[in-house]
């Protein structure tokens, strides 16, 4: 098998570059558009909460719960 060398630093740099470009675009969005995204995130969080039985609080993601980790879903 041909020995392939992978430029990990290059890949990481490219990934980082892409991420920061995306982030830069997000940061520059008009406030009303950002609010729309926040509302979508809230809906998504509510949907995830229904599945896991718990809702995330702010930025602190609080799942999986012990029950969920054990392969069961439900309220704790």
């Amino acid at each position, binding site marked *: 098998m041909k020995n392939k060398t992978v430029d990990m630093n290059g890949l990481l740099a490219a990934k980082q570059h892409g991420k920061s470009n995306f982030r830069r675009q997000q*940061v520059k969005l008009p406030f009303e558009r950002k609010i729309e995204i926040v509302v979508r995130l809230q809906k998504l969080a509510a949907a995830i909460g229904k599945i896991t039985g718990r809702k995330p609080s702010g*930025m*602190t993601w609080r799942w999986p719960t012990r029950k969920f980790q054990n392969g069961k879903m439900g309220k704790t």
Partner: protein
Amino acid sequence: MKKTLIALNDLKNKGIIDEYAIGGGMGAVFYIEPFLTYDLDVFILAGDEMDLQPLAALYQYLKKKGCRPKQEQIIIEGIPVQFLPAYNKLLKEAVREARKIKVQGTETRVMTVEHLLAIMLQTGRAKDRERFFKVLEEADIDRAKLSRILKRFDLLEKFQKWERLKDEK
């Protein structure tokens, strides 16, 4: 959102509150990449901060307008809004010096990014620390202004402590 902002401006125009500014998570979203946050934190200046009467008048007015209270928030046009009296010098300054912006053609006020950072430092919860570094990384900050605010409100030491903790991670 537009109707919520119109309702906020109404409160000021009718003299129920002296001034208001958007802060908290939604305030931070104005400057950085959107993230999950649940309510609109509105800091208000209204008479004596120890007097809860302005909040009572505000709730009464909004209830008459058909808004319903839900726990510590009040739902205005579908958006949960939490009114918080500016109870210390930093918050008062942040409300007074907030910047005017327009959202969907409606004028509103959002705290400056430097004041938001200082408030996060002062409040000091885990989520404040998380947001603090996110804002520091993504927003355009006037470092000299931030430094002045931190110095004035005795927050420089805490800032250095948070920086150390971040480096240790």
